[in-house]
């Protein structure tokens, strides 16, 4: 039977990365010197699982590396090893290495074996410097087992099970069947211990056997059959030709004498003991190989495509809720169809009740399905303890990171996209916000700065706040910088909000020099753009000397959108509410340019290009006169355009259907939805429309 093991890889990678996360957070939470037993246990278990899985699925290098980590953790768990700062640091580095290895294996890349070897060496050095002893022990074990695996032309097996044998789930019959497969077999049963009928307990085993086994059989194969019952019976295996007589007991004593020799050489008794366990004459017992210095690069692994596909792990309770909801839906449906069979006037009220129930079921079902995509934000937060620890070490700052509202749930896709912007913001807070401990003390603050991440739900949004008690944002510095960069004029009067907003202007950076920490080529403008793309907003509040607070608001899900319905001719379109700045009636004198080409609308001090939606989608509008319709000013990626529409209809939440999967991508349209009356409405892609209008203007010019 051949089974394609690669089908299990994805699950293995998923659970391994999860395990790494829990190892990391466990390690970060360990108190040096007085480690919490349960935490160490959890860390050990994660390493243990990764080792088991990687060995099973053939990722040898990963298994070997994890084995060393596991050994170290096992000693900590057993209390044989102190949890030192150095050990924790080394284990954290090992977690990184392991993550890199798993990523490489998953992507079928080469493993950086130099780094792996060097960290593995550090781990081994910490464990003990006695690798040579281990190797020697192993080789002497091997020679013993070779002696033991002498063949004989036949064996006599005397098997006397203890009376409780059956209660271990073992059955002599099965053992004999195995034996009979090895060679020519004959058995004599010994009934002398059989009690009188009245004393007979059917659950006990009273018989013993003498078995003759003829043929070229290795004693190891016999011992293997009896390996599980070794301690539950008296077993004697004797060779028929006397000179090759080796019994289990003798093998063991031979092994033991080897051990005592080894023991003298070994300084660390623990090493010897672990080897003793492997000395028992069992075929299944693996002899620990000396760690190979350079694990061969592994090429196996799940296809990359499988990684991108993405899977989601859902709590059973959510699935149960869903099933429950579907159950209710089915009941409502059958009730309605019964009522519908024969409609009489008196049934109408019941029918209305049924419809109301159907509506409630549908809404609940929708909510439950949405919840399946929801994950607690701790998935995005969990990387911060490590990051803050590393950063504060690097910068010499003291930081207390506080995570609040970690159980707040949001859509998986939103979570994936918000991760990097959050990292950037937290880095900024630490790098630019929190002062050096001495400076803080001089300013009358505690040496340890606080960075707080808080997440909570508000309306249909999730709000994430990043709060620090650092030096705050100096408005003057920002203003001067903005003037210097030509973003604003010297005479401009700006409100505080407008000044803070300058931080998000493209190409704006207040760091005096790009530091290793914050300067990663990603500016705050990118952060803002990412958040806008998710349909969210970001704002900063700050007080000089007291700290800053960044507030991000995001929709809970990307599957539903708050939309403004608009009408062009006979068609309805949806504009995402978040991109609408305002809607207004056009006054002729404020429009510049030639009708139909490169029209600009003078909105206060700005000129906003007008996009006639009926031109974009070649429709027949109610009127082509701008004054007859409305202009909806929308913003995307920092530019604004005015969409000319016939009318504004209502606002409503719409479920987004992908055009790409159901039809094909259409320029200027991001998706579609189905309205209450069953008609399909297209959702406008504001950024796409702005790009389109720019191209048009270039063409016209």
């Amino acid at each position, binding site marked *: 039977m051949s089974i394609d093991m690669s089908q299990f890889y994805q699950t293995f990678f998923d659970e391994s990365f999860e395990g790494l996360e829990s190892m990391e957070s466990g390690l970060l939470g360990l108190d040096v010197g007085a480690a919490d037993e349960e935490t160490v246990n959890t860390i050990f278990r994660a390493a243990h699982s990764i080792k088991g899985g990687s060995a099973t699925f053939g990722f040898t290098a990963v298994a070997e590396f994890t084995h060393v980590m596991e050994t170290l953790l096992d000693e900590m768990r057993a209390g044989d090893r102190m949890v030192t700062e150095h050990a924790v640091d080394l284990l954290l580095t090992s977690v990184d290495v392991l993550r890199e290895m798993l990523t490489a294996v998953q992507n079928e890349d080469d493993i950086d074996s130099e780094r792996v070897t060097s960290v593995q060496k550090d781990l081994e050095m910490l464990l003990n410097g006695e690798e040579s002893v281990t190797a020697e022990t192993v080789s002497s074990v091997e020679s013993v087992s070779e002696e033991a695996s002498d063949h004989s032309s036949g064996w006599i097996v005397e098997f006397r099970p203890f009376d409780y044998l059956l209660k271990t789930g073992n059955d002599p019959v099965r053992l004999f069947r195995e034996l009979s497969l090895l060679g020519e077999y004959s058995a004599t049963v010994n009934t002398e211990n059989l009690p009188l009928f009245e004393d007979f307990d059917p659950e006990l085993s009273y018989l013993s056997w003498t078995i003759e086994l003829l043929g070229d059989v290795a004693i190891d194969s016999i011992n293997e059959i009896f390996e599980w019952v070794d301690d539950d019976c008296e077993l004697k295996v004797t060779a028929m030709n006397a000179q090759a007589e080796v019994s289990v007991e003798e093998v063991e004593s031979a092994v033991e004498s080897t051990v005592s020799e080894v023991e003298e050489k070994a300084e660390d008794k623990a090493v010897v003991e672990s080897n003793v366990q492997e000395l028992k004459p069992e075929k*299944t017992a693996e002899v620990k190989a000396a760690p190979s210095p350079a694990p061969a690069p592994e090429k196996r692994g799940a296809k990359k495509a499988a990684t991108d596909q993405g899977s989601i792990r859902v709590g059973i309770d959510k699935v149960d809720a869903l099933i429950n909801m579907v159950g209710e839906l089915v009941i409502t449906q059958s009730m309605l169809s019964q009522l519908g069979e024969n409609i009489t006037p008196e049934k109408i009220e019941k029918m209305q009740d049924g419809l109301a129930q159907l509506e409630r079921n549908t809404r609940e079902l929708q909510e439950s399905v949405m919840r399946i995509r929801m994950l607690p934000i701790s998935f995005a937060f969990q990387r911060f303890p490590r990051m803050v620890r590393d950063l504060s070490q690097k910068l010499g700052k003291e930081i207390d990171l506080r995570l609040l509202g970690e159980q707040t749930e949001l859509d998986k896709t939103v979570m994936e996209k918000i991760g990097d912007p959050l990292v950037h913001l937290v880095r900024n807070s630490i790098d630019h916000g929190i002062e050096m401990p001495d400076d803080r003390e001089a300013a009358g603050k505690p040496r340890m700065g606080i960075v707080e991440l808080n997440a909570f739900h508000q309306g249909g949004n999730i709000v994430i706040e990043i709060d620090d008690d650092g030096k705050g944002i100096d408005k003057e510095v920002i203003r001067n910088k903005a003037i210097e960069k030509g973003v604003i004029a010297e005479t401009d009067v700006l409100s505080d909000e407008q000044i803070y907003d300058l931080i998000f202007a493209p190409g704006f950076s207040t760091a005096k020099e790009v530091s290793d920490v914050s300067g990663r080529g990603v500016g705050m403008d990118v952060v803002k753009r990412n958040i806008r793309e998710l349909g969210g907003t970001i704002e900063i509040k700050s007080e000089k000397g007291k700290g800053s607070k960044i507030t991000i608001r995001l929709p809970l899900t990307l599957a539903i959108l708050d939309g403004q319905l608009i009408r062009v001719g006979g068609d309805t379109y949806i504009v995402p509410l978040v991109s609408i700045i305002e809607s207004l009636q056009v006054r002729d004198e404020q429009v510049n340019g030639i009708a139909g080409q490169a029209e600009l609308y003078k909105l206060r001090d700005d000129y906003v290009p007008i996009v006639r939606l009926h031109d974009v989608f070649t429709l027949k509008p109610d009127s082509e006169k701008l004054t007859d319709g409305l202009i909806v000013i929308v913003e995307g990626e920092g530019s604004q355009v005015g969409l000319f529409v016939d009318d504004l209809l209502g606002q409503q939440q719409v479920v987004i259907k992908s055009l790409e999967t159901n039809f094909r991508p259409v320029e200027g349209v991001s998706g579609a939805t189905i309205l209450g009356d069953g008609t399909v409405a297209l959702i406008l892609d504001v950024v796409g429309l702005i790009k389109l209008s720019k191209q048009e203007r270039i063409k016209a010019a």
Partner: protein
Amino acid sequence: MAKILAVDDSASMRQMVSFTLKGAGHDVVEASDGVDALEKAKSNQVDLVLTDVNMPNMDGVTLIKELRALPSYKFTPMLTLTTESGMDKKMEGKQAGATGWIVKPFSPDQLLATIKKVLG
């Protein structure tokens, strides 16, 4: 064909074991830790228990001890799946009432060969 309870906190191991056993025509009940397994074993008499040792909530050794104490599991074969090649973990399982053990890593073929030994 037999009904087998496969217990492991690692989803990939569970998948592998379960797929292998089902491929050989067995019925498989999966459980992710000892507590889960004990509950499932009580409501669902199985012919063989395969359990990981190191698990959260309830480990494999305790699971076997608990199961062995139930009248309906007095003689049921129970095997531990253990990465420990050392004797102590195996013996710990044995003392709790395990029938035997399978050492990880094992291949699907090794798994099938081993359970054949106990299923008869």
